């Protein structure tokens, strides 16, 4: 793992900022059941559309019980925000790991085998990348959604499958190219002449040498998943189910924005809260990826 500029990263303020934000969000996700003040699904029509607690002048004063107010079904916005964080974190971790697993395997096979396998796999990559991934995702989510009960686990599972089905292609391409560059090096030749099986060479000699590509891809892709989830939620087909313009089922940042759009004028926090969450989480990962991946090295004076 000496391929990473650890020392430079440790001195960078951006890296520490990113790590701190990620740590806080992960803590929120892990401690969700304990820090969330209310049940995010519990609705009460007597306490709907409450303003935030510090708004006292209006026709309906805010209640200290609901710090950020309630939505139109009377559900606590703060709790929904916290549960949305958990959805985003869990989704990002599982979906990206699954996609990374498939992508790395496909890329290694295509790059190492070459010949017909490479031709066919590259053809598959081209085919899958000739539509924006979100279009496949929408269809996959719709296929699973009606059959599954609307629980949180099922909702996340659907999105994980949807993302993994399309997300792996970009990693496979990167891994394929790196593998092609590495497999012509003498140490691989030596392993082949010593009688190493293809699996041994793939896992022991090639995988460690492309691992930095995979790690950088993973960090770069986590924000993409969070944005995709938000986008799907915003369109109304994400983790949430849109029924009659309102959503039920699973709380997510995108879903919150989707349902908060209509109440922008009376409680913009429903849109601002998740937006800030998305921005912070995505930006931390982008900054982290920059420092690790050397993608955004400082410029050079000539």
């Amino acid at each position, binding site marked *: 793992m000496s391929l990473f500029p650890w020392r430079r990263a440790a001195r960078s303020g*951006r890296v520490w900022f990113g790590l701190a934000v990620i740590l806080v969000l992960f803590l929120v996700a892990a401690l969700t059941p304990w820090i969330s003040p209310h049940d995010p699904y519990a609705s009460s029509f007597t306490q709907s559309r409450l303003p935030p607690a510090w708004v006292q002048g209006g026709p309906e004063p805010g209640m200290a019980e609901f710090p950020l107010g309630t939505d139109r079904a009377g559900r606590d916005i703060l709790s929904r925000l916290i549960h949305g964080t958990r959805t985003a974190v869990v989704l990002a971790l599982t979906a990206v790991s699954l996609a990374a697993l498939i992508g790395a395997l496909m890329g290694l096979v295509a790059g190492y085998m070459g010949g017909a396998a490479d031709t066919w796999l590259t053809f598959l990559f081209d085919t899958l990348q*000739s539509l924006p991934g979100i*279009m496949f995702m929408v269809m996959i989510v719709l296929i699973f959604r009606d059959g599954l009960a609307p629980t949180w686990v099922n909702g996340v599972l659907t999105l994980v499958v949807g993302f993994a089905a399309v997300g792996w292609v970009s990693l496979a391409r990167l891994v394929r190219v790196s593998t*092609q560059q590495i497999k012509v090096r003498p140490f691989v030749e030596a392993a082949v002449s010593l009688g190493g099986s293809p699996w041994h060479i793939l896992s022991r000699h090639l995988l460690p040498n492309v691992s930095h590509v995979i790690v950088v891809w993973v960090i770069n892709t986590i*924000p993409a998943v969070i944005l995709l989830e938000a986008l799907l939620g915003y*369109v109304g087909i994400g983790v949430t189910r849109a029924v009659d313009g309102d959503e039920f089922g699973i709380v997510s940042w995108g879903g919150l*924005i989707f349902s908060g*759009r209509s109440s*922008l004028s009376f409680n913009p926090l429903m849109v601002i809260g998740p937006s800030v969450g998305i921005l912070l989480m995505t930006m931390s990962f982008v900054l982290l990826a920059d420092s690790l991946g050397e993608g955004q090295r400082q410029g050079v004076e*000539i």
Partner: protein
Amino acid sequence: MLRLLVRKLLRMAASLLGVTLIVFLLMRAIPGNPWANYATTPRFTLGVASDTGFQRELVRRYGLDLPAWRQFTRYVFGDVDDNGVLFCGAVCGNLGPSIQRRGPSVQQILFEAPEDRTVLESRFGYTLRMVLFGALFAIGLGVPLGALSATRPRSALSRVISVGLAGLVSVPNFILGLIAILVLGVWLRVTTVVPDWGKPGNWIAPVIVLAAVPMASIARVTHAALVNILSEDYVRTARAKGLSRDKVMMRHVFRPALAPIITFLGPLSMEMLAGSLIVEGLYGFPGFGRSFFTAVLELDYPMILGLTVVYASGILIINLLVEVACELIDPRLRAGRPQRAQQ
């Protein structure tokens, strides 16, 4: 060279057929049918057939009672219609009748402009122009920004640019769009609710919202490409032998940096096409950005497949042009060598 091009075109056609098949299989796996699913039917009547005879006639008319493979070949290559006349499918540009917009065919919906207007005023024309202007904006601003931050290291300007870009790539475009509507429409009142798209001024806000994130991405790619090349030994050599800064930049730096930047045009156009869904929805833009999603929700099968063909051919053509352009710039790529990895 010509043989290579023909081979690429054949591969492109195969990819197009492949993606159509994948979308066909996926869309048929979505539960429900065009006349009974939750987007077209109130939820409580789901699964309750209103008039089975009528519905059976509809199913037959759109060929949905045929076996799946015949539905696919019927769509792609053509089939015999009710009167025994042979008709040609998507290969001839016939994208089929839209099920939900009873009457017009998919190609009419997409490409037909109102009376005495050019194709630029069709749904396709509007989205094409929007994406084109967006791409121009993204490239025109993104490339100089990336170059600026790469060639002026450790300056305050470069720091501001790089953090700003990292921030910008993290904002989903629907949030940007909401902010833009809030600022321009609600506070400053410069945009109207139903804008006249004949006026160029009204295009500014949607185009910027659509292109902001791609602009940041392309600036980051430009930055990375330039930094990679600026630290090459030959650049130092060129500088050391006395070439001026500008000459080195033009001759030795920008030319090799073009390939990765051009390569990024593929993902860029993809990002913009996906973004047009949100932006067109936010601004009530008369393009076809939302059509794919409404078609999937309403299970308008010919519409889904027709849009797949349109999108995929667009993206495949862009990728082909990008590949050819890169080979023209960098002779090393011509021999079919693997391209360098791009983020």
